[in-house]
C-alpha cells in the first residue's frame, strides 16, 4: 500500500469530531445556500453568482443568528468545492485577530496571491471555481477604524483576483468608504414559521420528541435568533434525555434554560406594583376598584423586590420582561407607559454600568408604582 493511504485516513479521523459532542449549531449548518432559512432575497441574488461566476465585494449585516456566516460559507463551498476551499478562502474571525498588523500582513499577502489552478474535484462533481479568492472577515464591526481604513486600498488593488466578504451585526460601525465598496445584504430576523420548520427538522433528525408548545417557547425566547434556538433545544434535550425515564421537553424547561423569568412571577410582581392583571375578564367591572386596592405601599413593594432577588433572577431579564408586560398592557394610558419606559431605560443603562441589582430593581419598581398611582388619582 502506498504511503498516502494511512495519512489520509488519519486526517479524516481528526476532522470528524465525535458527533455526539458536536454542537448542533455546527452539525446542522446549511451545506448549500438553498438550505439557508428565510433569507429569500439574498439567496436569490447569490444563486445568480453561482451561474455567472461574477461576484461583487459583499457586506452582510443583520442581528446575530440569522445565517450570515452560514450563507457565505455555503456559497464558498458551492463555488469552490471541498478541495479548493482551503486554498481559495481565508476566514478571519475578528474577535482574536483584528489589528492593523494582521490586515497589513496576513490579509494583504493572501489577497495578492494569484489564485492557484483548480484542483481536480475528488468527489466527481463539477464546481464553477471562478478565478478569484474570497476573504471572509467575520465580526468585521469589531475591527478598529485603522484596520478598516487599511483595507480600503487593498480591496481595490486586488479586486481582480480577490473578493471580500464582510460580516457584521452593526453596519454603522463599518466605515463609509468600505461600505460603499461593497454590495450590501441585510439579513432579517427569522420569522417564526421558518424557525419552527428548521427546529422541527433538527428535532426529528436527532430523535428528540418535541411538541408544538415547546417549539413556540423556543421561538419566543430566542427572538428570531436561530442559533440561540438551536442551542437551547440541544441543552433542553440533554436535560430531558439525562433524566431516568427520558422526559418530554416542556416549555418550562426551555424558559429555565434560557434564564427567562416565569410569566407567573412577572405577573405577580406587576400586580404588586399596581398594574392590573390581564386576562381576568370577570374582573372587568371592578378593575378600577381592585387597581386601587392593589396599589400597595412602599414596604410591600420592597418586600416583593427582595423576594425576587432572593430567587436569583437576573435584573436585566426582569426589567426586559416587565417592559414587555407593560408595553402591550391594554388598560394603561400612554402617559403611564411612557413613564415606565423611561424608568426601564435608565435602569438598563445603570445595570450596564455595573450598578447594584437589587437597588435598581427597587428603583424601577417604585417608579412604575408611582406612575400607576399618579393616573388613578388624576
Amino acid at each position, binding site marked *: 500500500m502506498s504511503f498516502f493511504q494511512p495519512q489520509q485516513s488519519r486526517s479524516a479521523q481528526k476532522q470528524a*469530531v*465525535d458527533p*455526539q*459532542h458536536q*454542537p448542533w449549531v455546527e452539525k446542522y449548518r446549511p451545506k448549500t445556500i438553498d438550505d439557508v432559512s428565510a433569507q429569500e432575497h439574498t439567496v436569490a441574488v447569490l444563486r445568480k453568482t453561482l451561474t455567472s461566476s461574477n461576484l461583487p465585494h459583499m457586506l452582510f449585516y443583520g442581528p*446575530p443568528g440569522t445565517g450570515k456566516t452560514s450563507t457565505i460559507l455555503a456559497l464558498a463551498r458551492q463555488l469552490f468545492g471541498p478541495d479548493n476551499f482551503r486554498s481559495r478562502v481565508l476566514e478571519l*474571525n475578528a*474577535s*482574536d485577530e483584528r489589528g492593523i498588523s494582521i490586515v497589513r500582513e496576513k490579509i494583504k499577502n493572501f489577497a495578492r496571491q494569484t489564485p492557484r489552478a483548480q484542483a481536480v474535484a475528488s468527489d466527481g462533481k463539477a464546481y464553477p471555481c471562478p478565478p478569484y479568492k474570497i476573504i471572509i472577515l467575520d465580526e468585521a464591526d469589531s475591527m478598529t477604524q485603522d484596520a478598516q481604513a487599511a483595507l480600503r486600498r487593498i480591496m481595490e488593488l486586488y479586486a481582480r483576483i480577490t473578493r471580500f466578504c464582510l460580516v457584521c451585526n452593526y453596519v454603522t460601525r463599518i466605515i463609509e468608504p468600505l461600505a460603499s465598496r461593497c454590495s450590501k445584504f441585510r439579513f432579517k430576523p427569522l420569522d417564526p414559521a421558518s424557525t419552527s420548520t428548521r427546529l422541527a427538522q433538527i428535532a426529528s433528525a436527532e430523535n428528540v420528541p418535541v411538541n408544538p408548545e415547546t417549539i413556540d417557547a423556543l421561538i419566543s425566547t430566542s427572538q428570531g435568533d436561530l*442559533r*440561540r434556538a438551536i*442551542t*437551547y433545544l440541544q*441543552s433542553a434535550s*440533554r*436535560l430531558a*434525555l*439525562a*433524566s*431516568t425515564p427520558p422526559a418530554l421537553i416542556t416549555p418550562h424547561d426551555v424558559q*429555565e*434554560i*434560557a*434564564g427567562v423569568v416565569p410569566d407567573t412571577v412577572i405577573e405577580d410582581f406587576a400586580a404588586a406594583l399596581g398594574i392590573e392583571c390581564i386576562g381576568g375578564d370577570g374582573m372587568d367591572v371592578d378593575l378600577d376598584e381592585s387597581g386601587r386596592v392593589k396599589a400597595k*405601599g*412602599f414596604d410591600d413593594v*420592597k418586600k416583593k423586590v*427582595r423576594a425576587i*432577588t*432572593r*430567587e*436569583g*433572577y*437576573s*435584573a*436585566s*431579564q426582569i426589567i426586559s420582561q416587565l417592559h414587555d408586560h407593560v408595553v402591550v398592557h391594554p388598560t394603561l394610558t400612554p402617559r403611564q407607559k411612557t413613564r415606565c419606559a423611561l424608568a426601564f431605560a435608565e435602569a438598563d443603562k*445603570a*445595570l450596564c*454600568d*455595573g*450598578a*447594584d*441589582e*437589587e*437597588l*435598581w430593581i*427597587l*428603583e424601577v419598581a*417604585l*417608579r412604575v*408604582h*408611582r406612575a400607576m398611582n399618579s393616573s388613578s388619582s388624576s
Partner: protein
Amino acid sequence: MSLWVDKHRPRSLDDLHYHHGLSARLKALAASGDFPHMLFYGPSGAGKKTRIAGTLLELFGKGVEKIKIDQRVFLTPTKRKLDVNIVQSNYHIEMTPCEVGNYDRLVIQEILKEIAQTQQVDLNAKQRFKVVVIHEADSLTRDAQAALRRTMEKYMSNMRLILCANSTSKLIAPIRSRCLLMRVAAPNAEEMEAVLDFVAKREGFAIPDGTAKLIAEDSDGNMRKAILVLEALKMQNPDLSVSGLSIAKPDWETYCHKVADMIVQEQSPARVMEVRTKLYELLSHCIPPTIILKTIADRIVEQVDEALKPEIMHWAAIYVRVKGLLRILPPAHVLCSQESRMRVGNKKIFHLEAWVVKVMSMYKNFFYGIDMDGFDD
C-alpha cells in the same frame, strides 16, 4: 477543628437539603457522559459552590477531593508579574481570574489554553475531559469574556467550563447562550430552619423553636451566614433560648445604622461634617461604598414618612452608579472632578456625601414645606 459551615457542608449531591429537583438534574447530567458547559447563578450563600463540588464528585469520583493549592506567576505584556492562586486536583482546576483586575484576559487565555491543549492522560479517569471552574465570572472584563467565547467552542473535547456568578446581567449574551444555565435560588425560611436543625443535631444539641426562625429571618436567605450566626450564638450562650437572644450585627452595620440615625435626627451643615468623618471611617475599613449606601438607605427608610421613602431609594439608586461616574458631580465638586477620576478613594466619598446632603434637604423640605424643586438639577 473547623467551622461548622465547612464541617457540615454537604459533600455529595445526595446530601443536599433543598432544591432536590436541581440535584437530580445535575446527577443525571453527570451520568450521561454528554456534559455541557454550565453557568451557576444565584444570590450569595445559596449553595452554588456546594453544588459545583457535588457535581464534580459525581463526575470524577473521590479523586477530585485531593486538591492542592498552587500559585502561578504570569507576565503581562508590560513585564509586570501577576500572582494567581489556583486550586487544582487531577481532574479539575478552580480559579478566580478577576483577582488580577484588568489582566484577567491573559490569565484565562494562558491557563485555559494550557488545559485545553493537554488531554487527560490518566486512563483510570472517569471522563475524557477536565473541568475548569471560574468563580465570580460576572466580574470578568468584557475582553476576558470574549476570549472565553472562542475557547469554549474550540476545545470542547478536552475541557468543560463551570462558571459561577451572582447574576447573569453582566455576562455577555454569547457566553450565556453557550452554557446550560443553572439557577440556584436562596433557600426559603423552612428550608433554612431544617438545615439549622440538621447542623444542631450533628453537633449534639437541639435548637429551641423560635431561635431557628429568628436566625433564618436575620440571614435573609444566606445559608452560610445563618450557620455562622448559629455557631456564634452557641458560643455566646449555650442554651440558645429565644429570650435574651440577640444576633450580633457586624460592627460596620451598626456603624452604618448610627450614621442613618444621625441623618434623620438633624439636618445641618455641621451634621454633614460629622457624617463625612464617619463615612471616611467606613471607607477606610474597606467597606464597599455600595453596601454602605444600601445599608444606610434601608435604615433611613424605616424611620421616615411613607411619601419620602420612594424618593430616598430613588436617589440612592442614582448615586449608587459610583462606578460609572457618568453622573455629573455636585456643583461644588465639579472642579475637582478631574482629579477625582484618578483617585478611586475620592470619588466614592463625593457620591456618598452628595446623597446624604440630598436626603437631608428632602427631609427638611418635607417637614417645613419649602419648595426646593428649583434646586434639583
